[in-house]
């Protein structure tokens, strides 16, 4: 039938593109991070490995914070969206796709517009706080913007569809007969869920967590627009170092460390929780 060479030919164009415009730049980052110099005299490769501990030392608060905010927002998104995905998959009936689209609809609008409206919604006398204050539920001094809460809210909000999708896909694939069989074996509704549905949906959950976690940990826009002092994330630092300070080695070293940290998490995760490729469930 098809020759043995076909799959290579089929994947070649995509791989070439990714190889040239993704892999090579990443490798270049490794190289740049080991350079020393300044904008005036230029940079040369000096195998300056000491930049890694230096950078880690200086920016460990931001790195830690990124993982913290990323982690919390991921967890929140998970808790919020699992029931939604579950309901659509199991009780959506004929309108499943419609509900799914309704869920994804707001994310058609440019992300920047959404964040701006959040700025307004969360402002001190805005929709949320204004109402709460006039009801006397919180003090007049309370503010959400410029606090970690605002940043995490922004991160969680953007994560919702990305968390819902993989979970939904995984739940969709579950053979209903299995659930039914469990019921026939005297499992209560709750038990059906806990022992059949939940574990079978695990790959979707893991995919969602990875997708959302990685995006959120590396994010900088939420922190920039909704955050305040002491909410700076590693993404902000990388952006500043690259664009404003032009300090390429530091920025590259930071990028590399972020990426390695994430890859380590991914592999540990995949190792401990299952070896199926993430692809199948995202």
């Amino acid at each position, binding site marked *: 039938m098809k020759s043995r060479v076909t799959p290579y030919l089929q994947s070649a164009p995509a791989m070439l593109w990714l190889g040239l415009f993704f892999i*090579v730049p990443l*490798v*270049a980052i*490794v*190289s*740049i991070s*080991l*350079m020393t*110099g*300044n*904008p*005036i*005299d*230029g*940079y*040369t*490769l000096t195998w300056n490995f000491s930049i890694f501990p230096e950078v880690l030392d200086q920016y460990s*608060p*931001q790195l830690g914070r990124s993982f913290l905010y990323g982690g919390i927002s991921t967890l929140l998104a998970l808790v919020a969206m699992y029931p939604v995905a579950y309901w659509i998959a199991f009780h959506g009936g004929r309108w499943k796709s419609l509900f799914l689209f309704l869920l994804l609809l707001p994310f058609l609008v440019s992300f920047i517009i959404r964040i701006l409206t959040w*700025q*307004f919604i969360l*402002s*001190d*006398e*805005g929709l949320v706080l204004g109402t709460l204050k006039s009801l006397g539920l919180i003090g007049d*001094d309370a*503010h959400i*913007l*410029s606090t970690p809460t605002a940043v995490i809210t922004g991160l969680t909000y953007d994560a919702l569809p990305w968390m819902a999708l993989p979970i939904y896909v995984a739940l969709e694939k579950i053979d209903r007969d*299995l659930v039914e069989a469990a019921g026939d074996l005297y499992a209560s509704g709750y038990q059906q869920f*806990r*022992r059949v549905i*939940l*574990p*079978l949906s*695990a790959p979707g959950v893991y995919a969602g967590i990875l997708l959302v976690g990685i995006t959120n940990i590396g994010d900088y826009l939420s922190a920039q*627009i909704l*955050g*305040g*002092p*002491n909410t*700076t994330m590693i993404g*902000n*630092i990388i952006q*500043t170092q*690259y*664009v*404003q*300070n*032009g300090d*390429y080695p530091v920025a590259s070293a930071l990028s590399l460390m972020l990426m390695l940290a994430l890859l380590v998490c991914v592999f540990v995760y995949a*190792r401990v929780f299952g070896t199926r490729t993430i692809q199948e469930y995202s």
Partner: protein
Amino acid sequence: MRETAKDLRNDPAWIRGMTQPRLSRRQVLKGAAGAFAGLGLAQFIAACGLPGTKDTGWEEGFDWNAWWKEQKQHDELNIASWPLYIDTENGRHPSLERFSKKTGIDVKYSPVIQDNASFFSQISPVLQNGQSIGYDVIVMSNGWQLTQLMQNRWLIPLDHSRLPNFRKYAGTVATDLGYDPDLTYCAVWQAGATAIAYDERQIDGPVDSLEILFDPKYKGKVGMLSDPDELGTVGLLALGIEPETSTYSDWKKSAELLTRQRDQGIVRQYYDNGYIKALQDGDLAVTQAYSGDIFQANNAGYPHLKFVIPKEGGVLWRDNSVIPYHAANPVDALEWINFYYDPEIQAIIEDWVNYISPVPAAKPIIANQLDDPAVADSPLIFPSEEELARLKEYPMTETLETHEEWVGLFDPIIQS
């Protein structure tokens, strides 16, 4: 069927899986091959290194007078500026249209500059390569990026003989430049003052001192700017230090003051321009602010926001039209600069932009011919001599070392 998590720990298969070596020999070899390839690639890229900016500008001693004599008008002009920084009516720019009509020059106006640092990072590699950035006039604020442009000799010196309007009408705002005292490169487009803005509804009584920014009474409702130049300078002013003659130990004192302010929780956030929204929304009681923003806010339904230059002083910054090296149409650029220094044209522009005008003669024109006393009489647009006297400039950091010292002190406060 998949076991639930609880059972896995007792599952012999799982235990086996977890304890056995995961990598087969082939995988290790593949991994090693990959790593070597990667490193080899890195070496290859590294051999090129990243070039610096030294000696990439025009040569010292170049005879610009002779060069200018040879240049001709090409009837084309490319301007890069900031968004919403030129008169706009229904999507058109009347001042530019009048310019085209008068000189026959076809103008392309690109409001692509959103902040000095990111714009500079875009054009710097191009200039480094000795190529044109595609613009004949760019508008840069005074600061480290403009300093670098000047020091790298990436700007074309202006031919003032072709700028009669500048000579006749430019006010001290345009001629008294600490960063370019001989007016070699810069023709001010607009200027602005950075000082204090406060919400009348939240703060009683006259506000006339920088102390209010450091007052714990307004904890969590004070805004500061995230530009290290602005932040560092306000610290110096608050300590009564003249920015233009300040030294490194002065800067350290400023940093200490600002760090204390932050640690006390007084600062709500360090804003680039977003403070105006926060102020409008009532999230801030007082903040560092730019004059133009407050003027526009007053007109947009927020008359309770007041701008004041405190007794310790404020900062006068300028946005300068400069001609980048390798610009294709330098004569046309000069024509434009000369054109907008004409008071009548400046009046049109100023009436819309609402920052500080470099042409005092535009004031009566706005008051009478354009019938806009709100703009003409505003001290935010035509400040008095006394007010101008209280405005200082940022300390100039003239070398990479001093710049890094400055930034090294204030960046950590902004981005903790």
